């Protein structure tokens, strides 16, 4: 079993002799420190509408259209040109997973915050989670119960 405190698992960077591709006897793990390794940020968003429940039918193209319109409304043409990808869209629950560059996160998030209507219906984007790793969207840290 791998353990972080096990002998030889971690060494100080000065002492490690291992290079990528070179096997080093006696060292069980290679230590690599990445600074900001992730270029993208992922957002899990939901769309809430006036009558609670599925009051709005929306295709994935229309959903993307709403996002681009929101970006154009707040940040103009530069905002509309930001690369935003809809990775996954569920029509039934109106939730989606979006991907943007990390530097554009504030722009996208603020544009989504100020959305008031979609297809002439009142609605609101609820940002459920934001993470630089897609894996982290599997669980929701905001709903942890802290006693």
């Amino acid at each position, binding site marked *: 079993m791998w353990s972080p405190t096990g002998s030889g698992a971690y060494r100080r960077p000065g002492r490690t002799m291992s290079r990528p591709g070179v096997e080093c006897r006696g060292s069980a793990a290679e230590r690599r420190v990445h600074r900001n390794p992730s270029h993208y940020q992922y957002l899990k968003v939901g769309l809430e509408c006036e009558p609670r429940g599925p009051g709005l039918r929306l295709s994935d193209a229309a959903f993307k259209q709403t996002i681009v319109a929101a970006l154009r409304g707040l940040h103009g043409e530069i905002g509309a040109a930001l690369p935003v990808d809809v990775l996954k869209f569920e029509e039934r629950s109106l939730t989606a997973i979006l991907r943007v560059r990390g530097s554009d996160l504030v722009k996208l998030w603020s544009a989504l915050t*100020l959305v008031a209507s979609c297809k002439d219906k009142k609605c*609101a984007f609820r*940002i459920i989670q934001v993470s630089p790793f897609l894996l982290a969207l599997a669980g929701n840290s905001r709903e942890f*119960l802290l*006693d």
Partner: protein
Amino acid sequence: MVCFADLNIININDKKRLQTIIETAAHLGYSTVAINHVLDFQQKEQGIANPISVAELFPSPPIVQGKSKPIKIMTRLTLIASDVSHYNQLRTAYPQNLPYDIIAVEPKTEKLFHVACMTLDIDLICIQGTSKLPFRITRPPVNGAIARGIYFELTYFPAINDFTLRRYTISNGICLMNVCKGKNVIVSSATEEFLGLRGPYDISNFGILFGLSEEDAKAAVSTNCRAVVLHGATRKTALGVIHTTRNVTASEGKDEGRPRKKTKTEHNG
């Protein structure tokens, strides 16, 4: 950890809608909300009403997301005023203390803004996004307000509804941030419907648009709001002395140490 708070929910007469708004706020993660009574002195005939009774509105308040605690509901009064005499009118109506937790003033003139920052006995100064600011925010009164522990409030609901109002909101916000440098600012909703509410993290991200730093933007929905609530509590009492009385019934009065013992045995068992 500091809890999130939204200190401005407009008191609409529809009780059911107000309940929906507060339920949504609890679901979004706000631990404290304040129901706002707006008092406009430009329309003469309005009187100062007593605040809505919270216990009547919610016999059992909804549970906050991620907290397992019920949401805390407070009352707040906002004066829309253009002259100092309007505030004195309020003081004569309630010479002792006002039955509200938080008192806010929305100044319409530069003179009142100066007086509100320097001398008035209030907790909040509203900077609305519904119109262009009728005066310039200057540094001396703002510094005075920061020294006295008075906070400035920006509202974001107008920004959601209308493109023009959005421009006003952001420009007023930037004007304020240029002067106060992100200190003593809170951001609140001023919403009248549940779809106008946004989550606390969304709002702290929105604060970055005004030029706040990330920490200041988060403090604007959490730490600073708590400071406002505490400022209101000290203003309501004798400026720092908080006096509470516990209602002891006859049967409880006999064995006072008992409840503590009881919890101990529960822990053991």
